């Protein structure tokens, strides 16, 4: 049996193709009618034609749709007629019960082909031109059938049996009617149920692989290198996730037609009969790799592993399978399997399989490209939280790629090192970056980690630019933007006392980097749209078609199922009071959708997080929590940690405001735990956690403890050069002193914070510090009220323009208090000057559910009303005051709501 007849060009006749042939027969029956029987209009007829065109175009897809899927598609496309079609199709299929039936079927099929010999063409007749797409398809089918050996025909017959049976068993409505027909076959079918026929054409595959190898064609396979690289990064502020292939159209449709789980199901033993050419398998693997990298959890570990194992058994020379196994185990956190498969893949492929790298002129091909293996190993270690090993391996990668003068790999490696450095934070690297770290030793001077990071970033960027690696350039720009955003710059190497020590963050730099990167992204997007994806593109065809056709029928499905999200509808139409929110929010939303179109869930999640944070600050917690619920559904398991982090942050704020301090502390502790994960200590998170801790203590009026925590936090921030945080902590200290009644002690802190903010261009924080300063002055006595008022008025534009609800409300209350304590001010002359801000504040604080401040506002209002003699209003304000005080006393009542989230 070894000498099996090879079908021409891997075009094998399959049950699905037989189905298509049957549909073709409906479309163009040999009888001479202008409009064939079932169709009532030309449009209907044309629609079927279009559908068939799509089907024939996608016939090279690795996974052929099963009958039930085809039926579903038919139902969508053909509208009212679908019942008739489906009936006809299934009955025709199940009527094929002997090899002779198949022979007759294909002889019939020949009849619908118009040929040159068919003579006079009648105007109305529907005839398939043998040269047309459909005609070609039909001819190929007939040819393939004719080339089949008798054995092959028998196999086809069995397969058709399976094909029908599966569909029928999965759609019960037809079972009853068709069971009778197929009953006689059923036993015979059972016999072969588990039969494994995949290998029919498999020789072809390995042959093609060999052919490719010999032609040393590069297959774009590791195109993902930078993606895996940045897929690992969770915390980076703004990060590109470059999707080289597949335009946006594909993205939109893909989740709709072929959910990834579905594709894996198609592979299960008794239906995976139709493996075909190498081309298709490569395409399939490529698609799966994309799917895994976009959203690792969508592929189930075991079932996909099973598929891959089978593939490997059938095509032992297809090493790419090992890479997929690596990816699969990586995203399911199976360290040992990942390690094993990584090594195996690179042992076999020597890193030379399908790289989008231009081979260097020097003939070092003999050596292989094992440095790429090192790069991947390093990233794997990093992903599994072994930064030390990762750094070790990446250092080795740097050395080897320098030795091999593989600049591309070097650039990527440097970028990976940068990522890692910025990820694992300052504290945990300092030990590692000792003598063993070579890439930057050329500078010769021991630099701080941040400086080292900067040097590396610049090196990587320069290399990437010279090598024209656009994706890398883009991501480097973004990384630099993040760096600029979070680190205070000072001259890299400063000598002597004369060197300027200007410490500044530079917003312009950030913007510049961002613009550069987005520019590159768009450039890249337009470029990639012209690229055709191997293998994958045949799949795309049908998916794309599906969208416009199906949109009429299944618009409601589209709404819930696809990525163009419900969230968008939720957020957009609500007319938002502050134009600020609209602006910022929509920009984030824009970015979120942009990321989504690009196919990166982690960046999209980041954008959502930002949006929700803004919602919380500007619209209160209810809306934020509602939004977080949606986000949680959306990113159920992806980047869970980021959403979780956000949730914890919001919960903490909310509980602080509610006065539910125990719970707030609990949440704060959880945050603290998150800060020191396996990957090393996340400094940002750690500072945030202790900042929140201090705030909780402050809210509990434990001033000395709060001050102690804040002080140690300040020391830490100072030690690690976290300048922005320094300003925040100083402000907090001022706040603590203010609350504890030591306004004099608070003043220097507030002033220090103010000067920090000034030098780092932290405008909003500066406004907030100014407000605190004003409050401090005010609490020093009524003779300072004027000064305080002028301070507040100076900060008002910033606060009202960009500040959140809390800040605005605080400013309003402070303003009112200034007026009230000013001896020269009389309420009776101009009560609205005081009442207006108080009203505004109370509204905002109620939205925010900030009981303490709200109570204060109402209290002041009540007093003013009392003075004015407006007793009704006074009672109202007093009642509100009481309500808020009660809520503050018994925070438990509101917990239920919180726990439901």
């Amino acid at each position, binding site marked *: *049996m070894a000498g099996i007849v090879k079908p021409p060009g891997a075009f094998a006749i399959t049950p699905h193709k037989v189905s298509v042939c049957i549909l073709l027969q409906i479309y163009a029956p040999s009888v001479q009618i202008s409009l064939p029987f079932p169709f009532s209009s030309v449009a209907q007829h044309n629609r079927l034609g279009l559908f068939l065109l799509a089907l024939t175009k996608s016939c090279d897809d690795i996974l052929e749709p099963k009958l039930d899927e085809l039926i579903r598609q038919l139902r969508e496309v053909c509208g009212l007629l679908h019942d008739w079609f489906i009936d006809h199709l299934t009955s025709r299929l199940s009527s094929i019960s002997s090899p002779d039936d198949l022979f007759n079927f294909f002889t019939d099929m020949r009849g619908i082909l118009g040929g040159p010999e068919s003579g006079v063409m009648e105007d109305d007749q529907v005839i398939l031109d043998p040269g047309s797409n459909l005609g070609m398809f039909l001819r190929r089918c007939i040819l393939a059938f004719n080339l089949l050996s008798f054995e092959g025909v028998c196999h086809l017959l069995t397969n058709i049996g399976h094909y029908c049976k599966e569909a029928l068993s999965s759609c019960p409505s037809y079972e009853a009617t068709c069971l009778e027909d197929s009953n006689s076959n059923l036993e015979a079918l059972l016999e072969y149920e588990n039969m*494994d026929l995949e290998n029919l054409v*498999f*020789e072809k595959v*390995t042959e093609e692989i060999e052919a490719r190898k010999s032609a040393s064609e590069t297959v774009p396979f590791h195109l993902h290198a930078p993606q895996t690289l940045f897929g690992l990064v969770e915390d980076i502020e703004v990060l590109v996730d470059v999707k080289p292939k597949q335009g946006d159209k594909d993205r939109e449709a893909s989740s709709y037609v072929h959910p990834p789980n579905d594709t894996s199901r198609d592979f299960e033993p008794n239906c995976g009969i139709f493996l075909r050419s190498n081309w298709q398998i490569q395409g399939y693997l490529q698609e799966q790799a994309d799917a895994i990298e976009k959203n690792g959890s969508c592929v189930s570990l075991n079932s996909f592993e099973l598929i891959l194992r089978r593939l490997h058994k059938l095509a032992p020379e297809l090493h790419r399978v090992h890479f997929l196994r690596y990816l699969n185990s990586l995203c399911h956190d199976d360290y040992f399997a990942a390690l094993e498969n990584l090594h195996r893949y690179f*042992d076999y492929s020597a890193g*030379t399989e399908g790289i989008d790298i231009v081979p260097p002129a020097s003939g070092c091909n*003999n050596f292989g490209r094992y440095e790429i293996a090192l790069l991947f190993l390093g990233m794997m270690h990093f992903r599994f939280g072994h930064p030390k*090993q990762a750094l070790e391996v990446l250092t080795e990668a740097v050395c*080897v790629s320098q030795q091999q003068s593989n600049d591309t790999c070097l650039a990527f490696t440097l970028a990976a090192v940068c990522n890692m450095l910025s990820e694992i934070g300052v504290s945990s690297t300092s030990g590692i970056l000792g003598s063993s770290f070579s890439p930057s030793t050329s500078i010769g001077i021991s630099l701080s980690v941040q400086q080292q990071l900067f040097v590396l970033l610049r090196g990587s960027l320069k290399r990437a630019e010279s090598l024209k690696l656009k994706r890398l350039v883009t991501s480097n720009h973004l990384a630099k933007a993040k760096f600029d955003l979070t680190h205070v710059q000072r001259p890299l190497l400063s000598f002597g006392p004369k060197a300027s020590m200007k410490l500044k963050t530079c917003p312009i730099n950030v913007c510049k980097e961002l613009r550069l990167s987005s520019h590159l992204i768009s450039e890249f997007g337009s470029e990639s749209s012209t690229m055709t994806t191997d293998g994958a593109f045949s799949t795309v065809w049908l998916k794309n078609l599906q969208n416009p056709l199906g949109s009429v029928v299944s618009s409601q499905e589209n709404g819930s199922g696809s990525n163009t999200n419900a969230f968008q509808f939720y957020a957009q139409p609500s007319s938002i009071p502050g134009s600020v929110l609209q602006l910022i929010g929509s920009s984030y939303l824009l970015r979120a959708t942009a990321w989504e179109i690009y196919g990166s869930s982690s960046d999209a999640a980041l954008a959502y997080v930002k949006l929700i944070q803004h919602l919380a600050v500007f619209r209160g917690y209810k809306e934020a929590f509602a939004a977080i619920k949606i986000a949680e559904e959306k990113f159920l398991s992806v980047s869970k940690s980021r959403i979780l982090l956000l949730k914890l942050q919001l919960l903490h704020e909310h509980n602080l405001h509610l006065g539910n301090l125990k719970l707030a502390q609990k949440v704060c502790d959880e945050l603290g735990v998150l800060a020191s994960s396996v990957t090393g200590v996340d400094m940002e998170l750690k500072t945030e956690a202790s900042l929140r801790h201090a705030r909780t203590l402050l809210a509990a009026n434990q001033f000395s403890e709060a001050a102690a925590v804040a002080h140690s936090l300040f020391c830490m921030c100072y030690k690690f050069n976290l300048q922005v945080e320094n300003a925040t902590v100083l402000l907090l200290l001022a706040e603590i002193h203010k609350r504890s009644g030591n306004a004099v002690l608070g003043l220097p802190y507030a002033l220090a914070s103010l000067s920090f903010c000034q030098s780092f261009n932290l405008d909003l924080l500066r406004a907030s510090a100014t407000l605190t300063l004003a409050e401090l002055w005010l609490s020093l006595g009524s003779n300072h009220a004027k000064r305080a008022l002028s301070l507040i008025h100076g900060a008002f534009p910033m606060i009202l323009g960009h500040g959140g609800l809390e800040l605005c409300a605080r400013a309003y209350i402070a303003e009112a208090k200034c007026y009230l304590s000013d001896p020269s001010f009389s309420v009776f002359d101009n009560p609205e000057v005081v009442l207006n801000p108080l009203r505004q504040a109370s509204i905002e604080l109620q939205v925010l559910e900030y009981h303490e401040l709200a109570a204060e506002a109402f209290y002041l209002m009540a007093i003013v009303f009392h003075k004015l003699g407006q007793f009704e209003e006074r009672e109202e304000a007093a009642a509100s005051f009481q309500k808020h005080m009660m809520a503050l006393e018994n925070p438990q009542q509101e917990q239920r709501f919180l726990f439901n989230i």
Partner: protein
Amino acid sequence: MIELEGPLGKSDAVNRELVSLERELSTLRKNAAIDPFGLYLYGLVLKEKGSDSLARTVLVEAVNSYPWNWNAWSELQSLCTTIDSLNSLNLNNHWMKDFFLASAYQELRMHNESLAKYENLLGTFGFSNYIQAEIAKARYSLREFEQVEAIFEELLRNDPYRVEDMDMYSNVLYAKECFSALSYLAHRVFMTDKYRPESCCIIGNYYSLKGQHEKSVMYFRRALKLNKNYLSAWTLMGHEFVEMKNIPAAVDAYRRAVDINSCDYRAWYGLGQTYEMMGMPFYALHYFRKSVFLQPNDSRLWIAMAQCYDTERLSMLEEAIKCYRRAANCNDREAIALHRLAKLHYELGRPEEAAFYYKKDMERMEAEEREGPNMVEALLYLATYYKAQKRFEEAEAYCTRLLDYTGPEKETAKSLLRGMRTAQSNIPSMDVEHLPP
């Protein structure tokens, strides 16, 4: 049944009739209408299908009802990859079981147990060439090359046309660099049957020893074409590729060996060495770890691993010390470990440990009557160390021994001695002064 394209041409076959075969055989077994050979067949089908535990049960049934089917035993053995699975088999007592166990122990790298079993069997089957060859195999694994050579000479006298296992003999001859004996053996098997994988392997070994690596690879390739699961040929071919500096081919060959049998520590070791050669010591560590895990008593593996840690780039000296210590405990033939241990301890500023290892190293060299720079180094270090410890007698002894050598150390020893003498002449007087009244 369909042939697939293997690395060396068509080789593998995938049987598409397994399912129906299994169904048929299982019904037969259920109805107890199956004979032991049928059971064996059923076991084969099950194994091919991947249902290992059932296959084990069925094969046990097969050998219990008909113990003389060695194929059934060897299939069973291939299914016992751990000692636990071996012990859990429910086997009837029969002398065939001893053969099975001996061979299984061998495969599980329990060489001493295996050797004991075979020697026991040799009492019963005194003239069995097979047992002789297996004993040779076990001894080979224990690296007792002299005995192995003797056994094979004996074997060839009894059975001049024997080809089986002769590749191992050629390995021994290769290791001992016996050119003429190896060529004689190669010629002999070539005349007997040149189309046996063993023959090709022996010829490959011969060419390798002659340094003709291309030819050697050609013969290994031929051997693999005859039997693509021929483990040692893959590994040996890997070695040849390393010699030819064809790194990817070497890695590929080793990797195939490892994928055929993941317990082949030589191939893992080869992979590690290849990567180390490429300047990727950290990457290589993964492979050395594998090989060391499989063969924890081989000092060469430990030393290779230690040298990885010891490289300038990694310089993970503590780990290196641990590995060297393991190597030293495993009867390190090349005596690298002790010397490196001493040196590393010295570099890390631990004089006591350094002295301990230098002394050990020296004792070892004395026992083996070896001289050389290491000896000089050890003596010099010990002399200075004991001098610093003010144990002048020992220091003097080492110094006088140093005087036997030529070179700069001799002068150093002389000056050391002089220094000690003056110090000693001073000390007593000082002691007197400081004596309590």
